[in-house]
Structure formats: C-alpha cells, structure tokens
C-alpha cells in the first residue's frame, strides 16, 4: 500500500538482496551430490518403509529374556570392563608417546620442515579409524586385548599430538621469564613456568579422548581385538538376539557411566576451585605483613 502523503517521491527502492555466489555454487553442488546418491545408490527404498516394523520386532526378541541370567550379565559386564580397560591403557600409551613427538611438531622448538613432517604423521594417524588399525594389528598381536590397546593407542596418538603441539606453541612467556628471573634451573623452570599452564587443558583433553576411546573400544571386538564387540558380532553371526540386546544395554550403561564420571572431573578441572575474594582461601590475603605493606605502595 503506497501512502498518500508520500506520493510525490518515487517509491523507495529496496536495496537489492546480497548475492553470495560462493554459497549458491556450494548449495548446487550439494544438491546435485545428494540427488545423484538418492537415485543411484544400490538399495530398495521400499525396504525403508518396512524398517520400523523390522526394528520393532528385533527389539521385541532382543528384550525377550529381559533381566537375563546373572551369569550372562556378569560375563557381559566383564567384557565391557575389558573394553574400558583397553580404552584407558590405550589413551595412556598415546599420551606417553605424544609428548616427545609433539615437541618435534612445534615450530618454535624445531625447524619448519621437521614440524611439517611430524604434523603429516599426526594427520595420517588421525584419519585411520581404530577398527582398521585393529584389523591390521590382530594378525600380529593375536586375538587379544593387546591388539585393541595398540589400535587405540596409535589411533589417539595423532589427535593428542596435535593438541599437545598447539599447547606448546601457545605457552605464555611471562611465567617462564619470572622463573628465570628468580634463578630457576631448567627443570624448575619447566615445573613452575610451563606445567601449571598446560596441565589443566591437557588433563581435561586426555579424559575427553578417553570418553571417545570407550566408544571405539566397544566395537573393536568385531575384528577380534578383545572387548564387548566380540560378543556382539557373535550374537549377530549366530542370531542370538537376546545376547545382542544384553550387550547393547551394557554398552549404553557403561558408556554413560564413564561419561558422567569423566565429564564431572573435566568440569571441575577446567573450572578450578572457586575462591571467594577476601575469603579464607583467597591467595591474595595469605601473605606476610611485610608483603602486604609492599603491596600498599602506590604503583608507578
């Protein structure tokens, strides 16, 4: 509706909508890709319609023997505990090896070429799924949890190394200079200038990686590398639906339990201890009278 009071002036022209060729091209490419996949993928889409009913039936037979027998439960929980142990030891191994390797990837410690090569190694390790590593390790280390532990260790090495060198490159100079100024030895400098800076972030990421690794180690048994995945793949092969159901429940509960504990610890590490300003724990007040006097001098 044009307003009569403004009839003299021409209609206000809206500025033309901004056009973003980049996004336009991108969307077109994706639409084409999706369309091609939809049309050419080798499956009967009609089966998708039956899927909900099929899954419903599956859940029916999976939870047929709902509480299961106590030995079945003990066995499955033991296998999940194997998976958790594999994930933890794998994470620890990765961390132990990632520290020295990450020094080789930090540009401020070694030259650019060495750093570049080390980073490419990290990138390759990050790209391989743990299951493929386990598949390659099983013939060497046997059908045992060790194959799984090493798969997880090698698989996590890339991402932990990447994080470590990023931390090393971003260490603040201040505390190190302060340590130097009071005459610290190189070990003391590391202990008081560097470690306190990086420890919280490092620990918290380590725990986070552990949470990721639990999910990985729960399926490594599929290629025979130990843990609960083996029971699951057997259940699938021999169509023991009730065992598959039990394995599923144990995996979900175990994962959520570990996530909850580890998440709570991570939160606490990152937040630190809440210190009430002026309260009994306030470090600013825990100084000698002389220091307090010095603090009162006007700063220049």
């Amino acid at each position, binding site marked *: 509706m044009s307003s009569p009071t403004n009839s003299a002036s021409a209609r206000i022209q809206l500025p033309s909508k901004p056009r973003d060729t980049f996004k336009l091209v991108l969307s077109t490419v994706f639409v084409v890709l999706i369309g091609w*996949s939809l049309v050419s993928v080798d*499956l009967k889409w009609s089966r998708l319609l039956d899927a909900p009913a099929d899954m419903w039936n599956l859940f029916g037979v999976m939870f047929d023997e709902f509480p299961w027998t106590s030995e079945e439960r003990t066995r499955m929980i033991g296998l999940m505990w194997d998976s958790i142990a*594999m994930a933890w030891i794998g994470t620890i191994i990765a961390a132990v090896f990632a520290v020295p390797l990450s020094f080789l990837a930090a540009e401020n410690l070694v030259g650019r070429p060495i750093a570049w090569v080390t980073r490419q190694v990290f990138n390759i390790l990050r790209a*391989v799924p743990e299951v493929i590593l386990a598949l390659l390790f099983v013939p060497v280390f046997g059908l045992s949890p060790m194959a799984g532990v090493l798969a997880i260790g090698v698989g996590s090495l890339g991402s932990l190394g990447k994080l470590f060198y990023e931390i090393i490159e971003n260490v603040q100079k201040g505390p190190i200079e302060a340590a130097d100024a009071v005459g610290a030895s190189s070990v003391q400098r590391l202990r008081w200038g560097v470690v306190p800076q990086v420890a919280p972030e490092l620990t918290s990421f380590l725990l986070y990686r552990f949470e990721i690794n639990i999910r990985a180690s729960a399926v490594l048994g599929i290629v025979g590398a130990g843990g609960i995945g083996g029971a699951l793949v057997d259940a699938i092969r021999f169509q023991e639906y009730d065992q598959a159901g039990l394995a599923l429940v144990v995996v979900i509960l175990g994962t959520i339990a570990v996530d909850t504990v580890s998440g709570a610890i991570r939160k606490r590490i990152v937040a630190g201890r809440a210190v009430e300003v002026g309260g009994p724990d306030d470090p600013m007040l825990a100084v000698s009278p002389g220091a307090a006097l010095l603090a009162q001098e006007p700063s220049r």
Partner: protein
Amino acid sequence: MSDERLQLPPKPKPSLFAIGVWVLVVVFTVITARRVGFSFSGIIEDLQRPNPVLDGLWNIRWGEMFSERSRKAFVETLQMAVLGTTGGVIVSLPLALWSTEVGNPYVVPRVILRSINNVIRSIPDLLWAGLFVLGVGIGALSGLLALFFFSLAVMTKLTADTLDGIDMGPIEAADAAGASHSQMLRTAVVPQILPAFSSYALYDFELNLRASAVLGLVGAGGIGNRLDFFRNRGQWDKLWGLVFMFFLVVFIVEWVSVRIRRRLV
C-alpha cells in the same frame, strides 16, 4: 625500617581434589593394565615374529585402488555418507531447537529429548550398523540408517550447545514485533546458528565418510565389505591398496571441507 626478615607466604596446599584425581589415575592404570595383560616385552616379541601384514605392505597392490569392484564399493561408501549425513542434518535442526530453552519453553520434554539423545550418542556407529543388519538385513540400507542415527546424535548435540549461547537480542526484537513462536525461530534464531550449523554438517560428513568405510565389516555395505573379504582371505597386499585409496579420499574430502568451513564461519 625494621630488620625483620620478610616472611615467605605459606605454600598453597595441593587441593584434595588434585590428590584424589592422581591417586585415582594411578590405581586405575594399574588395574586396567593387569586386566588387558599389558607387557612391553610381549609387544616386542610379537613384532619380531614373521609379520604377514607388513609383508603385504611391502608388496602392496596399487592396482586394487582402481579395480572395478573397489571403485563400486567406494561409490557406495560415498553415497551412504552423503545420504546418512543429509538425513541426520535435516532432522537434527528441529530436534536441537526442541531440546533448548529458546526453542522449547517446557522443561520436561526438553529433558526427555536430551536424555534420549545421550543414549543414542553413547552407541558407537558400528554397533548401530550391527543392529540394523540384524533387523533390516545386510546391505547399504543398514549402513545408511546407522549413519543417520549417528549423525542425528552428533548434530543435535553440537547444535544444541550452540543454541545455548546465542544472542538474545534478536529474539526479544522478534517477540516485540509480535512474531509467533515459529516466526521468531525462523527470523531470530536460525540465522544466528546457520553458519555454525553448516560447518558442523560438513564436519559430520567427514566423520561419516570415515565411519562408513568400516560399516561393511558387519555387513552394512561400502568398502568395509571388501576389507573384510581381503582380511578373511589373508590378502594383505590388496587390503593395503584399499586402505591407501581410503586415505586419499579422506584427505581430499577433508582438504575441501576445511576450506569451505573456513569460509563459512
């Protein structure tokens, strides 16, 4: 000036929490190391034995990268990743909105949705694939469904976390202008998260591509089927060829995706 020595401030005591965590870490490490039977000498011993996998790597069959069957398997992997991601991304947007305060004022449905999502997220992708193979049967459809649920969980979680931190200004403006709830979401919420959301979608695609390579190990289609085939026959030379092909594809996709994501955000 008095000659009194300055007293050093007392050393801060290590917090009970820090000690507790360290004790826990050490104890847990010892227990779990025993559980998996960890030994360095065992590893070295195993490495000294003849090693069919490494032999395969030295005699790698590059031809396997281009054989007809491998190419087909790769195309299937790619298709599963594309479709699984698309489905998961589309469904995750409303789910993420419903599981946050801006999109859903009711606490109870919100909490229920988040808990369901946590359960879905705790199931690894290969386990999803195994379940669907049991229920729906062997083939690409099972892999597709597995990737769909996996994407759904990841995308909903990431998007919901982003939604928790958005700027409330545009929402108030939309409310003040008399927008309905859906109009408010459309004009004040979605545009704010769209760049991050598209970036997550690409990241999710990278994850899915990597995951879809192994789904075939439980019979859910893609190159995993070929990997399983070569593994069972002990043809490690061919398996390595396939693994290198996989690297190549993942690297190219990641290279492109990282560049697009940088431009988006």
